Structures are given as structure tokens and as C-alpha cells.
């Protein structure tokens, strides 16, 4: 396996880890809101959160490209402060975050829903505040769902292709991930290199799934 292949794999893993770390707080917040709160428009929020799951990733990428492009207010604001997203590693992380977000939220949410509300209510009668209840009771009891969500999101991020190629491009050494690399190598006739990446992707996916199964089993 060539140095190039390893570099692409390392880059992809680092990007996916970063995307997972950055997604987790948002996903926990969204999962908690969806599991515990009732408010008008909740169904709408649920739908919006799940959107990247059903939209073709290329469409998600097109939306992101527009959002961070020079024609949207967001893109112009970022331009003004000198932050470039399109064609950089930031675009890779953002694409990964957006496509994995719904998966993580779903898992976190079902984890929180399985927590018996009586424990939370009991803690409240003893004077614990909302945040303390969340931190000391809800989240620890929902940790299986959170961990499963994180691993699921990480795995999805590893394989992300459609949104990435739209918004980050396929620039070797700068934005080229495993999935994008496989595509580019096939497109440009470098099939052997593509097979190398494919093998690594399979190994990584295997590792992530194996770990998640073991974690869940250890906890049960």
C-alpha cells in the first residue's frame, strides 16, 4: 500500500473524528429536545433534522455549495472575515457533519427516551436543577445511545462522498477523502490505487462496526 493511500486514509479518519466531535454536542441537544420537550412545530423540527438522511447527498452538497458560495449572505459574511470554506478541509468536515447529524440525533434520542423519567423527576424533587439532572442522570443513563450514535455518525462520515465532492472538490492532499479518492482514481483510470483505498475503507468500516458491537455488548 502506497504512502499516498495511507495519507488519504489518515486524512479521512482525522476529518471524520473531528466531524463526530463537533456534531455530538449539537446532536445531544437536538436529541434531548426531541425526546423530552413538547412545543408547537416539533414535527417540523423532526422533519428538518432528518432531511439530510433522505436527501441525495449530492443535493445536500449543492445546498452547502450555495450556502458557502459567493451568492449567499453566509458565504459573503465569511468572505468578509477572510474565512474560506469551499475547496478546503473545513468543507470536508462540514459535509461529514451534515450527513451524519440525523443518524446521531436518532440514536441519541432513542437513548434518552429509554431513560425512565421517574429518576429525573425524583432528582427534581430533591432539588436538582435541569442541567444537573441532564448531566448526572439523563446523559449517563443514555450513554449507550450516545455512543452508538457517535460510532454510527463516524462510520457515515468515513464513507461520505456526494456532498463532499460538491463542496470540497477532489484535491489530492487537501480535500481528497477515501470515498472521493476511490471515485477519482476510477475516473482517471488508476484502478489499482482505487482497490487499495477500497481495501482500507472496508477495514475501517469493519473496525468501527466491530467496536460498536463490542461496546454495546460490554455495556449490556
Amino acid at each position, binding site marked *: 500500500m502506497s504512502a499516498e493511500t495511507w*495519507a488519504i486514509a*489518515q*486524512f479521512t*479518519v*482525522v476529518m471524520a*473524528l*473531528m466531524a*463526530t*466531535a463537533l456534531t*455530538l454536542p449539537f446532536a445531544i441537544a437536538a436529541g434531548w429536545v426531541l425526546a423530552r420537550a413538547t412545543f408547537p412545530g416539533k414535527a417540523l423540527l423532526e422533519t428538518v433534522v432528518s432531511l439530510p438522511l433522505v436527501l441525495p447527498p449530492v443535493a445536500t452538497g*449543492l445546498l452547502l*455549495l*450555495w450556502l*458557502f*458560495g*459567493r*451568492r449567499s449572505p453566509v*458565504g459573503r459574511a465569511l468572505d468578509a472575515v477572510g474565512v*474560506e470554506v*469551499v*475547496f478546503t*478541509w473545513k468543507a470536508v468536515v462540514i459535509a461529514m457533519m451534515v450527513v451524519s447529524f440525523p443518524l446521531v440525533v436518532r440514536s441519541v434520542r432513542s437513548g434518552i427516551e429509554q431513560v425512565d423519567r421517574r429518576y429525573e423527576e425524583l432528582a427534581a424533587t430533591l432539588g436538582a436543577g435541569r442541567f444537573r439532572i441532564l448531566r448526572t442522570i439523563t*446523559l*449517563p443513563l443514555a*450513554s*449507550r445511545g*450516545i*455512543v452508538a450514535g*457517535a*460510532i454510527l455518525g463516524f462510520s457515515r462520515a468515513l464513507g461520505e462522498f456526494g456532498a463532499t*465532492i*460538491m*463542496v470540497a*472538490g*477532489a*484535491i*489530492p*492532499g*487537501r480535500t481528497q477523502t477515501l470515498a472521493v479518492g476511490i471515485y*477519482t482514481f*476510477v*475516473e*482517471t*483510470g488508476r484502478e489499482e490505487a482505487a482497490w487499495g483505498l477500497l481495501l482500507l475503507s472496508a477495514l475501517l468500516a469493519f473496525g468501527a462496526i466491530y467496536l460498536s458491537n463490542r*461496546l454495546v455488548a*460490554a*455495556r449490556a
Partner: protein
Amino acid sequence: MATRNPAMKIVNWLAAGLAVLASSAPIAAQPPSLVVSVAASMHTALEELAVLYRAATGVTVSLNTGSSNTLARQIVEGARAAVFISADDRQMDVVEKAGRVVAGTRTRLLTNELAIVAPIDRAVPANLAALLEGRVTRLAMGETSSVPAGVYGRRWLEHEGAWPRLQSKVIPFPTVRAVLSAVEAGRVDAGIVYATDAREAKVRVVGRLPANEHAYLNIVQPAAVIAGPAEAEGRRFLQFLRGPEASAVFRRRGFGVER
């Protein structure tokens, strides 16, 4: 024990991952380089030229390779490519209409020809008459409204009045590379691609449509400098692409160079 809690484990891994990120300086601290968005069919030639250019000037050229449609879309939305090399005029038109081309820099960099290809192990007829005759039941082409080689292939068949009869035999593919893979695998009887693409695949070229006999096709693969902070570097690179050294590389790979 902290590690008994799976949530803590995850947090630890993430921390480890971020530590790796912090230490993997090559990702963050790369020297600025020239991004060139290039259609997949010219990638190998550009890869070779990037090496030559670096040797001559010390400037690293990063190739963003993809289908011309995607590349054009990215540039229209403001992606910082310095030079765009498209597989056909239409996608360059899109970029130019959006005001992203530096005035006066659009150039007819290369010309190309269509080729009819067939699986290596099959003796397949070479000309249009044979295509029509019926021994070809499945004809692979790039998507005939968006993939450049597919658009030109269709234009040729329409010009010959053969499109209505062949249309039902056409199997459209999203990229030229996919067309070649289908032919290589022997899953179709023939395919229509750019002559230069055919050279890079394990297929048999059974027919060519010489540019001088099919002038109406006028297959041009244009290049232009894209507006942005790297304009000056872009101009220098395009100048190099039009120079004698680059022309020799393109010719050797089967592209037409009009200069």
C-alpha cells in the same frame, strides 16, 4: 474508573483523534498552491504537466478532477480555482456567463475526436452502417444531454440521421469512464467516447471520426483563468499550457493542439 463508561470512552477517542489532528501539520500548514479544476478526461495529461511545471517554476499545481458539470457549478458558486479546463464549450459558457472568467483569457486549448470502441475480444463492425445494421444491440454513451462525449456523440448520430433508430439501443452513463468500464467488461457491444479517453482503457478502437471530416462537431476543450486572488498565477500556468513543452505532451496523448 472512567473507562467503564462508554460515553467517556468515546470522549477519550475523540480527544485522541483531535490530538492526532493537531500533530498532523501537513494538513493545516501546506504551502499555498495553484488549484486547477480539470475535466477527468484530461487528468492524466495535466498530472504529467503539473510535474513539469513544478520543476520549472517551483509552484505546486493541485488538480481538482471531476466531471465538467460539477467543476463548473463549483466555480460559479465561488470556488477558488485559478484555471478551469473543461471537456466542452458548454460548461465553460456556464462559467463565463456567471462572470467568473477573466476577460480575454478563454482559449481553445485542445481539440478532440470521437471514437467508437468495442470490447477487445469481439470483432465488431467499425462504421455507422454497421451500427445501424443490428449487430450492435447495446451502445454505451455518456448521458446525451450533459456528458460532453455523449452530447457530441448524439450530435453526430443526429447529423447522420441515425439517432431515431439507435436511440433505443443507447445505454447512458454518467461519465465517460463508466462508458469505458462497461465496454471493458464486455457488457455492451460498443461505446462512443473521446478518442483520447479510448487510449487509456483496455478497449479496441474500431472507428474514429476525424475532426476534418466532421467539422460541424467542432469538439473543443477550452481553458480559462478564473477571477480571484490567484489570477496572476493562473495566467502564468495557462501560458505554460499553451507553450511548446505542454503542446508536445498533449499531442503525444492524442489531443489536437491548434497553434
